[in-house]
């Protein structure tokens, strides 16, 4: 299938995995699984995709199968989210530690309790420090494109880390867009077959046997952590390079971040995922109707965290407002903490505001975002911060806040 077609992000991701010619897909098929792996199992059953589908007994089993399959040199894909991703937690560290280039689609959804099934970023934030690369996308097209890019990034010799392609549950996963589907030939040219090297990769090769996943004494552990950290740092350049190559082949480019009308902005809103699309509309309106110089910075790559790009996009801002779809209980929010850590060491330190919105599937509307900009504008004008942390869409009357 090439050309253009109306499809959901779930379908788009499945098409991307097929185009990437993944050889093994392992997944647990029941809630919170999405239709991604259902489409893939259909492709494989019909013979449209030359791959092995391993139906696992749980997400723990699915990631275990992915680790095994990747260790024998297969290009591997899985998908999960929410409780399922949490069940994978232990294995996610193993996959990153063994430096296996597995790609996983995460349809960001909340974690119980409260038990819902709707969108927020709590699930992926729980895996933030596992060593995986995390890319948050804004549109269905970007989801398709990023999955293809993700294999190339993950398999790059300087990186060799698994990649999570995170996209907002329901808001993207179950919403259809007109999607451009690249041809198999073009994708194959961009992303050739995965060929691991037995002397370098974790690769089960009877000619060059190795033992993987064994013990490591304190004399060496830190050095392997350092190697992983170094790979994340190097991944920034690789993500940029792969994105450029993708643009050359397919004409679409996304970057580590996307700075939308940030150049002359007094107020820069930082956000991830679909919220960014809504925020762009609000930015346009605020500029047109009120003449306020505001902009939005989309964090596409969250791990590695694009410090340099964040500094560049906020270099002239008076106020930086961070809109989070996740909470770090007892302190604030994860993205805010990373932005604060980035700006603190810098000579230009704008006022920093921290907002929570869109938890548990609550729609982040233009009204919510406009209110965030209004608060930020007030801070820009007065130089003062009203509150350290603002719950932007909280029903304050209901909880007496």
């Amino acid at each position: 299938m090439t050309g253009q077609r109306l499809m959901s992000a779930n379908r788009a991701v499945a098409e991307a995995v097929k185009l990437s010619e993944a050889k093994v897909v392992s997944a647990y098929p029941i809630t919170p699984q999405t239709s991604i792996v259902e489409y893939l199992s259909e492709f494989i059953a019909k013979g449209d995709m030359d791959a092995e589908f391993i139906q696992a007994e749980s997400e723990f089993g699915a990631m275990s199968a992915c680790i095994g399959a990747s260790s024998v040199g297969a290009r591997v894909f899985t998908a999960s989210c929410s409780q399922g991703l949490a069940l994978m937690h232990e294995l996610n560290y193993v996959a990153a530690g063994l430096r296996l280039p597995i790609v996983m689609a995460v349809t960001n959804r909340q974690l119980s309790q409260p038990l819902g099934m709707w969108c927020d970023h709590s699930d992926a934030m729980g895996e933030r420090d596992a060593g995986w690369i995390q890319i948050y996308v804004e549109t269905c097209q970007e989801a398709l494109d990023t999955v293809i890019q993700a294999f190339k990034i993950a398999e790059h010799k300087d990186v060799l880390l698994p990649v999570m392609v995170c996209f907002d549950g329901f808001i993207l996963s179950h919403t259809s867009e007109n999607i451009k589907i690249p041809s198999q030939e073009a994708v194959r040219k961009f992303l050739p077959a995965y060929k691991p090297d037995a002397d370098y990769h974790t690769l089960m090769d009877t000619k060059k046997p190795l033992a993987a996943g064994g013990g490591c004494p304190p004399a060496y552990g830190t050095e392997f952590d350092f190697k992983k950290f170094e790979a994340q740092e190097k991944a920034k350049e690789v993500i940029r390079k792969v994105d450029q190559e993708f643009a050359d082949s397919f004409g679409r480019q996304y970057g580590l971040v996307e700075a939308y009308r940030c150049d002359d902005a007094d107020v820069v809103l930082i956000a991830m995922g679909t919220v960014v699309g809504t925020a762009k509309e609000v930015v346009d309106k605020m500029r047109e109707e009120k003449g306020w110089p505001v902009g939005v910075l989309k964090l596409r790559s969250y791990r590695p965290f694009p410090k340099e790009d964040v500094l560049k996009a906020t270099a002239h801002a008076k106020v930086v407002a961070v809109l989070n779809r996740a909470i770090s209980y007892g302190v604030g929010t994860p993205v805010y903490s990373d932005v604060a850590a980035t700006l603190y060491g810098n000579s230009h330190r704008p006022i920093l505001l921290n907002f929570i919105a869109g938890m548990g599937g609550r729609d982040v509307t233009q009204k919510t975002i406009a209110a965030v900009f209004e608060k930020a504008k007030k801070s820009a004008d007065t130089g003062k911060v009203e509150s350290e942390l603002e719950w932007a869409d909280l029903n304050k009357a209901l909880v007496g806040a």
Partner: protein
Amino acid sequence: MSKPYWTKENFPITPNIRNPGGSLCFKSGAWRTLKPVIIIEKCNKCGLCQVYCPDGVVRKRKDGTYEIDLDYCKGCGICANECPKAAIKMVVE
């Protein structure tokens, strides 16, 4: 001090063991707080200490008595516990 298993020249990206004998490089005897001492006069050469040792560090000498490789003995005391002649005692190092 153990001899290095990985060096600057061969340091990999992940702790995979490519050459056999890796455990010889990690002298796990350093974990020990109590060491087993065999009282040869009491030993009846039954070999139960060797059978029960979880680390395989009890070796038979030519004369039929046993010795313990303290480079790798972790001092668990199972040999002393199993010895029917109480010929092994655990002493603080």
